């Protein structure tokens, strides 16, 4: 029996919300709800199999509470959560499967994976820097993807206590070895570009991802929805969905 997946989209009026609707239709899913500011999410959540949340950081915890209440799988693409908001959401990972990622594209997740390898193979005199560029309407900095890239760098070089430096200004002193510089460029309609640089005195490696349009994130979210629906409760990311986690 081929049952269509029922999805409810939170944040449907936003740019990502619109892309999610198109992708869900292309994947022949049944859209049980399109929720945004002012709408009551509860009936739409009750009716679905999977919730796809690309809304606002303040909204996610409430949606997660409802997801757990009705035992629904949740896909979270919203970024910029506070520690308290994150904690509230994570409390539900013992009850339902949650795929939580700053970036749902195959390309970016490949970049996370390659970054970990590169940072692990090179030694500390390859200094890490992250550059990200997004459109003029993005409200948070750095991007969720950039945060993910910084985490990938830290995980690969776990014996070093890295400090993140968000932009540099004034006489900041020579660059400490335990620093990761993060630079957030904003302008125009750039969908999303990220570069990780590992630069030594004599050579450098640059790993870049450029997104042409939002369909890559929406398609990845659908891929995650299909995958997560069969998983045990827990916290997952796109590397799990893409099978890029070494056992």
């Amino acid at each position, binding site marked *: 029996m081929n049952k269509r997946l029922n999805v409810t989209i939170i944040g449907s009026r936003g740019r990502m919300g619109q892309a999610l609707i198109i992708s869900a239709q292309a994947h022949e899913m049944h859209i049980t709800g399109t929720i945004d500011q002012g709408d009551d999410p509860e009936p739409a959540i009750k009716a679905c199999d999977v919730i796809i949340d690309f809304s606002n950081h303040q909204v996610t915890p409430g949606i997660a509470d409802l997801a757990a209440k009705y035992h629904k799988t949740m896909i979270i693409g919203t970024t910029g959560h506070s520690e308290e908001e994150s904690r509230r959401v994570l409390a539900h990972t013992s009850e339902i499967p949650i795929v939580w990622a700053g970036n749902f594209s195959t390309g970016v997740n490949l970049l996370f994976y390659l970054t970990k*390898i*590169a940072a692990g*193979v090179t030694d500390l005199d390859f200094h890490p820097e992250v550059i990200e560029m997004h459109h003029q309407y993005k409200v948070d900095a750095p991007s969720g993807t950039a945060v993910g890239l910084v985490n990938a760098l830290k995980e690969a070089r776990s014996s070093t206590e890295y400090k993140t430096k968000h932009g540099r200004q004034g006489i900041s002193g020579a660059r400490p070895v335990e620093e990761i510089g993060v630079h957030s460029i904003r302008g125009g309609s750039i969908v999303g570009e990220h570069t990780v640089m590992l630069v030594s*005195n*004599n*050579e450098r490696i640059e*790993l870049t*991802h*450029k997104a042409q349009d939002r369909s890559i994130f929406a398609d990845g979210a659908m891929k995650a929805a299909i995958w997560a629906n069969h998983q045990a409760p827990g916290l997952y990311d796109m590397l799990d969905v893409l099978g890029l986690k070494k056992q």
Partner: protein
Amino acid sequence: MNVTIVGAKGRMGQALIQSAEKNGIKVSAAIDQGDDPEPAVISGDTVIDFSFHNVTPVITKLAAKYKKPLIIGTTGHHIEERNTILSHTNDIPIVWTGNFSTGVNLLYYLTKIAAQVTDSDFQPEVVEMHHRHKVDAPSGTAEGLINSIKEGRNAIKYNVQHGRSGIIGARPDEEIGVHSLRGGSVVGEHTVVFVSDHERIELTHKAQDRLIFADGAMRAAKWAQGKQAGLYDMLDVLGLNEG
């Protein structure tokens, strides 16, 4: 650890001496044309050969005789010279590669993974840039990157297209475009692009100077200490060859 350097008077030989000093490694002997290699080989813990294709077999025999690990960066060996060298991989560990830089070998590895993980809607292209005196195109490293792509997608029979010109038709899926830029004093830059309709990945390496090859050779020399007899390359030294 101390090292014997063969080919000390060349550009790479000089870079090796610099690198040894920087890395706190003692150079027990630095020889070139006209010097007696035997006492030099005896004096070092490891022998590093960046000399000339017809010199390497002699050095290899001596290294095997005195049980010294051997690092070979010399290129352009004839088939008989290759066979002589390979025959001694039963006696000593030999690290043999055309490019000793950590960065480039990392790029080979990352390229292979990227080729494996992405499907054929991600089309591969290679761009390389070198100084105006370079006589061959594309670079040896670019050839290595093309191989990495092919290895990552071994079910596809790729055709390499060196630059494009005229009305050549739409780009076939089984094509890898390679582009060789020449100018100024660029030491060496390589980019692999995987581009789909909606996103792309670009993996780049930029070399500042030849010291990266010398540093890689020193890293290989340290690594080879205590290893079993056999033939190794930089991916082994960097821990990138799965067992």
